[in-house]
C-alpha cells in the first residue's frame, strides 16, 4: 500500500510540474520583475509629471534662474562668491572620489595631481580667487603655458553646465547676467525668464526682517531655491556679524562647527575629520563604500519582504483556484478514491509552495544579477564592489528567515 507521505509527494510533484513545465509559466516568471520595474518607473514619471503640473510654469518654462536686487551693492556679490566656492569644493571632492569619466579632461588630471600635493582648502582658495577674478574681468587663456589656475578658470566657465549635471550638490540655480539689469523684474518673472528674485535691503546685516523673495511659483521648486539662497546669504551675513564683533572667521567657524557622531564598529578604523577624508582619496572611497554598504544592508531584506508578501498572497489564490477547479471537474472525487482528503490538500499545499519557491528563486537570482551588473550604473555606487553587495543580498540569514516566514505565512493562508 502506498505510504501516506509518498501520496502527498506524488500530488505535490504533479501540481508543481503542471505549473512549472509550461512556457507560459517561465515567460510570466521572467517578465514579472520587468513588468514591476516598468510599473515602478511609470509611477515615478507620473509623480514627476504631477509635480510639474502643480507649478504655474510648464517644465520648459522653468528657467532655474533667479535675480538679485542688491541695495547694499556688495552683499549680493559676496553671496555669489560663496556659491561659487561651494561648487568648486564639491567639484574637487567629486574628482577625488572618481577615477573614471571626468578624468578624460586633462585639466582635471592636473587638478587631481594638485589635490594630492596641496591641502584642499588651500587649493580651493587659490582656484576660487582666480575664478572670481575671471568671472568679473572675463579672463580668457587657452595657452598651455599659462598658469594652471588661469586655464582652469577658463575650463570652469565652459564646463559649468556639464558639472551642474554630474557633480552631486552642484548649484542647480544660477543668477541672471548682472549686465542684463532691468528695472521691471516682475515682467521677467511673469514670462518665466526667472523663477524668482531676491531683494537685499540696504540694512540687511542688521535688519530683523531680512530680505524679500518674489516668485509666482508656489511649488517645492521655489521653496528649494529660497532655502538654497538663504543658506549662502546666512553664511555671508554671519561672517559680517563676526567681523563686526571682532571675531575672525576661522575662530567663528571653529566655534560654530556642529558636533556629530559617526556610526562605526569597535574594531573599525575610522577617519577623524572631514578634512582628513578629503586629503586621502583612498580613505574617502572606502568610507563612502562602507556607508553605502551599510545603507544597502538595511534595505536588502526589504526585497525579501516584498517577495514574501507577494508569494503568500498569490499562493493562497493558486490553492483556492486549483481546489475549486478540481472539485468542479470532479477530479478531486477520483483522487479521493485513492487518497485521503488531508493527503490531497497537503500535497496541493506543498505543490503550490514548490511553484512559489521556484518563482522566488528566479526573482532573487534576477535581482542578484541586476545588482551585480547594474551596480556600477547607479550613481550612488560608483566604486562599490558589486560582488560584495550581491553577497550581502544573499546573506544566509536573510534566506533562512525568508524560508521560515514563507512556510509559516503560506501555511497559515493556505
Amino acid at each position, binding site marked *: 500500500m502506498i505510504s501516506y507521505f509518498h501520496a502527498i509527494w*506524488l500530488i505535490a510533484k504533479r501540481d508543481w510540474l503542471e505549473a512549472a513545465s509550461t512556457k507560459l509559466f517561465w515567460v510570466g516568471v521572467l517578465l514579472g520583475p520587468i513588468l514591476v520595474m516598468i510599473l515602478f518607473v511609470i509611477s515615478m514619471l507620473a509623480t514627476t509629471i504631477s509635480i510639474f503640473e502643480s507649478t504655474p510654469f510648464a517644465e520648459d518654462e522653468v528657467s532655474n534662474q533667479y535675480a538679485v536686487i542688491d541695495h547694499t551693492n556688495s552683499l549680493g556679490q559676496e553671496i555669489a562668491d560663496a556659491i561659487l566656492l561651494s561648487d568648486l569644493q564639491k567639484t574637487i571632492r567629486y574628482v577625488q572620489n572618481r577615477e573614471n569619466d571626468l578624468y578624460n579632461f586633462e585639466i582635471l588630471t592636473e587638478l587631481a595631481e594638485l589635490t594630492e600635493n596641496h591641502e584642499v582648502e588651500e587649493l580651493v582658495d587659490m582656484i576660487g580667487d582666480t575664478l572670481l577674478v575671471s568671472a568679473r574681468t572675463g579672463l580668457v587663456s587657452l595657452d598651455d603655458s599659462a598658469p594652471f589656475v588661469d586655464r582652469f578658470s577658463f575650463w570652469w566657465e565652459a564646463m559649468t553646465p556639464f558639472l551642474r549635471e554630474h557633480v552631486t550638490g552642484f548649484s542647480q540655480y544660477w543668477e541672471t547676467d548682472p549686465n542684463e539689469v532691468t528695472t521691471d523684474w516682475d515682467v521677467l518673472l511673469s514670462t518665466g525668464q526667472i523663477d524668482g528674485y531676491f531683494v537685499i535691503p540696504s540694512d540687511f546685516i542688521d535688519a530683523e526682517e531680512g530680505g524679500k523673495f518674489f516668485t509666482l511659483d508656489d511649488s517645492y521648486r521655489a521653496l528649494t531655491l529660497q532655502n538654497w539662497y538663504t543658506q549662502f546669504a546666512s553664511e555671508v551675513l554671519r561672517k559680517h556679524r563676526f567681523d563686526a564683533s571682532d571675531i575672525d572667521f576661522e575662530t567663528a567657524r571653529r566655534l560654530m562647527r556642529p558636533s556629530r557622531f559617526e556610526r562605526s564598529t569597535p574594531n573599525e578604523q575610522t577617519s577623524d575629520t572631514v578634512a582628513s577624508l578629503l586629503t586621502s582619496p583612498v580613505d574617502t572611497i572606502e568610507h563612502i563604500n562602507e556607508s553605502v554598504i551599510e545603507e544597502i544592508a538595511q534595505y536588502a531584506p526589504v526585497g525579501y519582504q516584498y517577495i514574501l508578501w507577494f508569494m503568500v498572497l498569490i499562493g493562497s489564490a493558486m490553492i483556492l483556484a486549483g481546489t475549486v477547479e478540481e472539485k468542479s471537474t470532479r477530479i478531486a472525487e477520483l483522487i479521493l*478514491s485513492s487518497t485521503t482528503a488531508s493527503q490531497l490538500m497537503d500535497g496541493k499545499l506543498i505543490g503550490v509552495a514548490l511553484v512559489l519557491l521556484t518563482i522566488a528563486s528566479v526573482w532573487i537570482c534576477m535581482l542578484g544579477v541586476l545588482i551585480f551588473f547594474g551596480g556600477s550604473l547607479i550613481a550612488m555606487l560608483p566604486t562599490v564592489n558589486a560582488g560584495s553587495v550581491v553577497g550581502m543580498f544573499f546573506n544566509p540569514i536573510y534566506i533562512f528567515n525568508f524560508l521560515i516566514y514563507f512556510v509559516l505565512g503560506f501555511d497559515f493562508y493556505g
Partner: protein
Amino acid sequence: MTSFNSVIFENTFKVFGELCALNNFSLSIPPGCIYGFIGPNGAGKTTAMRLLVGITEPTSGEVQVLGTSDVSQIRHQIGYLPEEKGLYKRMRVLDYIVYLGRLNGMSKLTAASQAKELLNKFDLSQWQRSRCQELSKGMGQKVQLIATLVHDPILLVLDEPFSGLDPVNVELVRDIIFDRVKQNATVILSTHIMEQAETLCDQIVLINKGESIVEGPIEDIRKGNTIKIEHSGECDVFYGIEHVISVKQVGRTATLQVSENADTQEILAQVLPRTRVSLFNTNAVSLHEIFLRAVGSEKKMK
C-alpha cells in the same frame, strides 16, 4: 459472514443537512458478480457508491468493503469511475494514467507498462503522448476507464459507465466488465438504461429516495405472474381458462394475470385450440416496468 460478500451496507444512513440521501439502506453484494444500482435521479445511487469508495462516511450504520469497514486500508483494491468524468487537461494521457496508478500503490514502471497495454486495448496508443485536452469526449471517457482499471482492482465501482459512449465503445466497455468478472473481480455499476442492466447485471438493487425498493438476482425480480400472448383473436378467447384471473388486450397483444401456482404450459395448451398464437412470453415483466411500478406506486401512496 463478512468474508462472503464484497460489500455490505448495514442500516446505513447518510444525511446532508435536511436531506436524507440514504435511509436505512441495507445491501449485500456477493463477490464475482455484476451488481447494478438502478433508480431515478437523486435516488441515492451515487451517494451509496461514494460511501463504499470512502469519499464520504455514513452518518450512521456501517459500510463494509472487502471485509473491512476501514476503506482507507483497501483503497488500492478499488477502481472508481465517477459519473462526471474530469481529466487534468494539460497532463499527457500516459502521465495521467501512470499518476493515478502510482497513487494506488503501483511502481512507475509497472504503471506505465500496464497503462500502455490498456491504451492499446482501447485503441488509444497513438494518443498516449497527447494532452488530455486534445481528446474527444468519448476518448476522455475511455482514458478515465483505463485509469480506473490500471491498478487491476478487485472491486470496480462504475457510476454511469456508458453515458456518452457510442455503441461500439459501449460494447467495448461491456467486454471489459465481463472480462474483469471472469478474473473474479466484483463490478458495481449504476445506470439509467434498464435494458443494459437486464443484459449485463447478475443482481440489481432498485433505489428510490435513499431506500432499497427491490433487490436480488435479476431473474427473481423479473419473475412475475403475468403472461403476454400475441394472437389473432379477441380477448374473450381467454375466458374460462383455469388460473387466469384477468385479461387486458391492446391490439393483438393480450396480458394475462394468472394465479401464483399456475402452470404456464397448461395454460398454453388451453389457449392453442382457441386462437392462433404467434408469441407466448412468460418472462414478461421488464425492469422498466418494475421500475415504473415501484416508483409510481410510491408516488400514488403519497
